[in-house]
């Protein structure tokens, strides 16, 4: 059988359109996931009422303990049964954000716990309030520890957007499937798809390196 990469080249405009949708979902979902991870991670690192603690850990465990695919199905196809209806794009962003937020909140929490107790005590001894200590002393140090796992989270999210093709969003993977069924050229099409995803995730790796480098200005 002969390989024909013209199929890929001819469909580049389509692929590009689909990539933009993938990126849009990934970036939006990541932004929300970061926000969730930050709030949940910080709250779970400190003494909060037991009921909140329970709720938050239930959220984290449930979203980490079930497949993302089921979560997406549930949000898009299941929730309308109880009157919660949204378009596929919104469902995709919400699903990815809740799932990513659960994982990333654990990274945030671990990074906060990695800052030594002495830092907090030094801040208190100088007269910082709890919130001031968290904001000025703990979080900036935790941030550096959190960068690699969070950027990893972004990378995972980029790849996981391919799952939202199942709720009929014409992002990169679904576009690839459509082009394949039209051309019957799986080798070329899926190789190209893989390449596109790789370019995106590798850019994230490079970006992460840049941020880490900037944070290397101080050591312990």
């Amino acid at each position: 059988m002969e390989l024909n990469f013209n199929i890929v080249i001819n469909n580049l405009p389509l692929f590009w359109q689909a990539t933009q949708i993938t990126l849009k979902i990934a970036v939006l979902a990541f932004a929300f996931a970061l926000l969730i991870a930050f709030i949940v991670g910080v709250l779970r690192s400190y003494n909060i009422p037991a009921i909140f603690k329970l709720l938050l850990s239930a959220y984290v465990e449930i979203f980490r303990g079930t497949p993302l695919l089921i979560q997406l199905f549930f949000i898009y196809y299941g929730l309308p049964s109880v009157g919660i209806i949204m378009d596929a794009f919104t469902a995709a962003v919400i699903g990815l954000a809740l799932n990513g937020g659960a994982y990333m909140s654990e990274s945030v929490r671990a990074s906060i716990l990695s800052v030594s107790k002495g830092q907090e005590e030094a801040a208190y001894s100088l007269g910082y309030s709890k919130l001031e200590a968290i904001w000025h002393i703990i979080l900036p140090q935790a941030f550096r520890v959190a960068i690699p796992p969070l950027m990893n989270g972004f990378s995972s999210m980029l790849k996981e957007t391919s799952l939202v093709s199942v709720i009929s969003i014409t992002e990169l993977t679904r576009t690839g499937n459509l082009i394949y069924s039209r051309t019957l050229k799986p080798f070329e099409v899926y190789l190209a798809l893989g390449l596109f995803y790789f370019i995106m995730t590798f850019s994230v790796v490079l970006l992460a390196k840049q941020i880490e480098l900037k944070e290397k200005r101080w050591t312990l």
Partner: protein
Amino acid sequence: MDVINNLIEIKEIYKSFGDQPVLRGVSLTISAGEILGVIGASGSGKSTLIRCINGLEDIQSGEIIVKGQYMTNRRNSREARKTIGMVFQNFNLFPHFTVLENITNPCRVVKKMNSKNAEIMARTLLQKVKLEDKMYQYPGTLSGGEKQRVAIARALAMEPEIILFDEPTSALDPELAFEVFDTIKLLAEDGLAMVIVSHQIGFIKNLAHRIIFIDDGRISCLGTPEYILNNNNNARLQDFLIRLRENI
């Protein structure tokens, strides 16, 4: 009230970790400008005592009164901490701030100073501890002695009336310990009250007005350095001193 004349008054405090008693009825007063040395075996409760004084540890019973104010809750402790500075064994500088920022940040956040005044304050204090040439470096690049001098400058920036030192030199090589001792002497000359926990008897005895010997969670002996080191007939203290000298 007589209480006001004392900077810090500690009445019968009890502190335990779980079911392990650590402080078992400690009473003590510290007056303005006084330098108090604290000695005692490892695990006797020295660190716990000074951590209780500035509210880093809760006590089970007893009273701590700072400038006539009872420390009863977190809010009170925070007020009291403005009077009390603390210098830790392992420095606890903020590694993500430069030396200068280690001082300007608390000045801005806690004392609500503007950036300009905070920087003036920081520069003056860094001059005092002879580290103005390191102010743009990060703590990670400093020697232990330099780190501790920055920590002292940082504590001073809050304009405390007393500083608690928990073994300020025991993480340092002897030659670096001396530069920290010299800095502490400067503070003594300024009349700042201090509580100094240290195993460096030679240093304490020249500086302290009084020394307490803590044994098993109690103040077992209290007096002038002369009395503590030479004239007491406390067997546990004499044991402790002999072992200390042997180790040096």
